[in-house]
């Protein structure tokens, strides 16, 4: 762990037309750290992580990832890094989505090697060997030639995680990875994510699984109304919330 954060977000704003969703967010993520973003619906959690890897272009503010500026402000002028820089950054911090978003016309194996072969320009046979190893690790070694349609939700999400890992990322973004799953499948995905954390992978997770956040997170950020209201280690956030907004939220999810 170095002193320089892997990812740093400063005064980030995002508006959709007249709707001001992010109102100045500051966030630092250190290498090897597991950060959870929690908060009420519509508070800006998903918008924040979609802005971090530029699935949405922020309106103002600063994002630095692994020493590269993705966007910054120069006086009143908002600068966004060239597409090439953004693409490279994205390939190092892939996202796992709520609805999996596997490429429906490609097999499990093809889904996983797409990024390494096309974006990272790795040799196809190496990418395949890598993908087969990742599939075994997530417990889907026998599903390489299946199509996404033939898998359960939990299996799809594990393929999506393998697809992200195949990029050999520096950070993985999770956007509510268990929200679309049947309750009995949630535990399997959480176990997989826990496995990544144990390996020292840097994770930023938007989640409603509070008990999971409490067990796994190094830092929990509570986001409401477009700002980070409170940040801290999980025990303090869940047991001794300082702001009334957070204590209200904790009460509402416990009852």
């Amino acid at each position, binding site marked *: 762990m170095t002193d320089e954060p892997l990812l740093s977000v400063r005064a980030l704003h995002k508006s959709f037309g007249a709707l001001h969703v992010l109102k100045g967010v500051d966030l630092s993520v250190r290498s090897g750290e597991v950060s959870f973003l929690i908060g009420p619906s519509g508070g800006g959690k998903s918008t924040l992580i979609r802005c971090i890897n530029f699935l949405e272009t922020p309106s103002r503010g600063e994002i630095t990832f692994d020493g590269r500026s993705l966007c910054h402000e120069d006086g009143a002028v908002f600068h966004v890094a060239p597409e090439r820089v953004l693409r490279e950054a*994205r390939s190092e911090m*892939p996202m796992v989505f709520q609805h999996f978003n596997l490429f*429906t*016309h490609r097999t499990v194996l093809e889904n996983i090697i797409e990024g390494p072969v*096309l974006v990272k320009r790795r040799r196809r046979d190496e990418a395949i060997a890598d993908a087969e190893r990742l599939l075994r690790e997530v417990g889907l070694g026998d599903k390489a030639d299946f199509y996404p*349609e033939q898998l359960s939700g939990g299996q799809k999400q594990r393929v999506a995680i393998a697809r992200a890992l195949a*990029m050999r990322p520096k950070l993985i973004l999770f956007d509510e990875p268990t929200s679309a799953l049947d309750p009995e499948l949630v535990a399997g995905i959480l176990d997989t994510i826990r496995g990544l954390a144990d390996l020292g992978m840097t994770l930023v997770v938007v989640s409603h699984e509070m008990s999971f956040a409490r067990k796994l997170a190094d830092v929990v950020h509570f986001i409401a109304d477009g700002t980070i209201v409170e940040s801290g280690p999980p025990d303090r956030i869940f047991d001794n919330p300082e702001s009334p907004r957070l204590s209200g939220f904790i009460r509402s999810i416990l009852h």
Partner: protein
Amino acid sequence: MYEFFFVLIPRHFPFLLEGALVTLELSFLSMGFGLVLGLATALGRLSGKPWLDWPLKSYVEIWRDVPLIVQLMVIYFTLPTIGITLSGFWAGVLGLSLNLGAYLSEVFRAAIMSIDPGQRAAGMSIGMSKVMIYRRIIFPQAFRIAIPTIGGYFIALLKDSSLVSFISVNELLRNGNIIISNTFRNMEVYMMVAIIYFVLSFTASRLIRYLEHSLTPRYLRRQGRAAKALAPEVAVLP
């Protein structure tokens, strides 16, 4: 009772086949140009640039709202007065291509828009470029959705190419008319013309069905529910 004059068939069939060959040439060229034009128009309109959207939208509207026969007449008879003279054949190809392109652009646009935005987001999230995303993710999925509709327009084009006989291109229908004006046996000749059109269109429709089948992943061909939802034509095949 009408006396069917069978001897006309072997005597004039080769001349009709010559016409059918021209019909096929017209159709295939127009399909090729129409596909490219339709795809380019769809992509232009989806680019979100107003200066591109406006002219393309006007093109699509105008070409869909004017009868094809009028378009062909304008291209063949009116363009020469402003100095653009095309042979009947190429005037036909131009008219049919522009017409097909206008319709196909809407087919492509709808198919591309029907792809879940999550597919694009997933491609972006692993660092794929816009071109890669279109080439590897959007097009293969959109094309499979569009195939049955494109096929329908192809068959319509094959038959609409008969309108080109009005601008003196010696295709199937016009050759038929020429035979009739020499023999006055319209029953036999039109029967032959109709049968040739039917065989051409039917063959085309089977080829499209086969293409659609081969583009459908194997697992979708078997699974009843998914197959019905995604590829209604394929589901009824044994």
